[in-house]
């Protein structure tokens, strides 16, 4: 006889009362996130390359400083320059967000997950909570590290700012929030598209390619549309100097959240209608 049981046989007695809850599902999602190399490597790349790229840009800007005109020096935004590495970071968190969901569909794990937790929206919510928390913590660390390292580099030959200067703390904090909301947008795309490559393609298109296309359109259109694009909102959020034709940071952040909320809402609508 195989030792398969820990309790009684028929199941009815050992089931007990109660019901699966969000806390258990979130613990499960945390286990999933930290137990595959793809996510740990993506997070490592997010931290390492974002800070590295930001630092390199600061080194380059510092060496150019002498050749800048007075006007160029006046609009130079040391905070935003030190956060330029987020251009890479936004891709890393998008990939991470997409894969948290699409890898379940790609591997067939979604069947096991849905059998364990029939409430699929709870699964999506737990994924969003865990992903959002992880990216918020890592994103803020990355953003603040980039800022302090960048200012240290810029202070040598160019101009730098302190964290207590007007608008700086808000801009650096928004750097981490920007990554968090983009990760959730990626998660929403992952649920909707269900294929890793397809969802990442859409994410990269929205974040990198659409802004380039809009830039080529007549100024009247590109000025009206451009400020609502995620990447441009990212620049707005992480800048201290603002141009007249920009959304205010908080409006921009609200628009950014609307992207993620819409993707997650459509995903949450589809996930209970489609077969797992």
């Amino acid at each position, binding site marked *: 006889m*195989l030792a*398969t049981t820990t309790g009684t046989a028929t199941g009815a007695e*050992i089931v007990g009362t109660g019901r699966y809850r969000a806390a258990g*599902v979130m613990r499960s999602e945390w286990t999933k996130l930290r137990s595959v190399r793809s996510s740990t490597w993506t997070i490592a790349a997010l931290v390492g390359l974002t800070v590295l790229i930001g630092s390199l840009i600061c080194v380059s800007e510092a060496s150019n400083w002498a050749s800048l005109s007075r006007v160029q020096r006046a609009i130079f935004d040391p905070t935003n320059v030190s956060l330029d590495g987020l251009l890479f970071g936004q891709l890393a968190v998008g990939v991470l967000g997409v894969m948290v969901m699409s890898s379940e569909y790609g*591997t*067939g794990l979604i069947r*096991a997950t849905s*059998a*364990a937790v029939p409430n699929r929206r709870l699964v999506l919510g737990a994924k969003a909570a865990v992903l959002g928390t992880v990216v918020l913590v890592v994103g803020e660390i990355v953003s603040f590290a980039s800022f302090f390292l960048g200012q240290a580099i810029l202070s040598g030959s160019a101009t730098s700012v302190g964290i207590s200067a007007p608008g700086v703390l808000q801009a650096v904090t928004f750097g981490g929030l920007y990554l968090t909301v983009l990760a959730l947008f990626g998660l929403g795309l992952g649920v909707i598209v269900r294929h890793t490559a397809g969802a990442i393609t859409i994410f990269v298109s929205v974040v990198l390619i659409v802004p380039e296309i809009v830039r080529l359109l007549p100024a009247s259109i590109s000025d009206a549309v451009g400020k609502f694009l995620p990447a441009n909102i990212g620049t707005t959020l992480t800048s201290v100097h603002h141009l007249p034709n920009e959304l205010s940071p908080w409006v921009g952040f609200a628009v950014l959240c609307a992207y993620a909320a819409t993707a997650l809402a459509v995903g949450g609508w589809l996930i209970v209608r489609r077969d797992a």
Partner: protein
Amino acid sequence: MIEASGLSKRYGRTVAVDGLSFEVHPGQVTGFLGPNGSGKSTTMRMIMGLDAPDAGGVTVNGRPYAELGWPLREVGALLEAKAFHPGRTAANHLWALAQTNDIPRSRVDEVLDVVGMGQVANRRAGTFSMGMGQRLGIAAALLGDPGVLLFDEPVNGLDPDGILWVRNLFKSLAAEGRTIFVSSHLMSEMALTADHVVVIGRGRLIAEAPMAEFVAHSSKRYVRVRSPELAELGRLLTAAGASVAAEDDGALAVRGLVEAEIGALAARSQLELHELSPQSASLEEAYMELTAEAVEYEGIGTAVASNGSETDAGQLVLAGK
């Protein structure tokens, strides 16, 4: 206990499952038989709440799957060989599933030992052979120590030792009073494991019966007769309404009369008999006959009658008869 009633599912214009009703009872292994593509996997996915039926419904322990409080503690399932992330270790895969249903960590090591994978607990699942993947799937099914277990084509990819192990596992699980529902397209496998069968073809119920009854009721049942006066005996039997066919080794296969009638007939004509033995069809033959029929009926566009809702679990129901 699993109860399906009028279960139907279509994908686009293809009908996968069509008005399927059956019951799976505790304490025995119920085989779920049908050719490839007959709707077995779709049915199992509907039991698990993964696919939504277009009509009808199915309950586990009296409730739809989605309403189970602790699904993994009531139902365990092996639905496909690779329902895991290849980059995650066996132990982490099971632990992530266990956490959703508040199953303790110690249970993960327990089920890994039960399936003989204690040594590879910390290896990434992507490195596993098909058979090991199957064992990991079985470990996941056992995780919550559930009273109802579903296995979809569980012997696929298993070596002979593994197949023997799985058979014994199913039998011991059933002996503990659990409900075991195992699908297969392999008759020979079911003949050795199942106590009861649910047979489907083209998404419809063909038969639902205890295994012995399923084999016994097959029209392939016949009586083998040997006699030195075979020609004369053959004429008498045909005249009495039997159908007679010569077998390769010179024996006569008689259908339509039971052995007592054949013996009486021979005695009356004073014909010498050397063998008079009832032959029951193998499960394989019974199954081939039934499923061929289902395909045939489908081919001429006539519905195969399967009033599943009226079937008595213990009674053999043959479609189209």
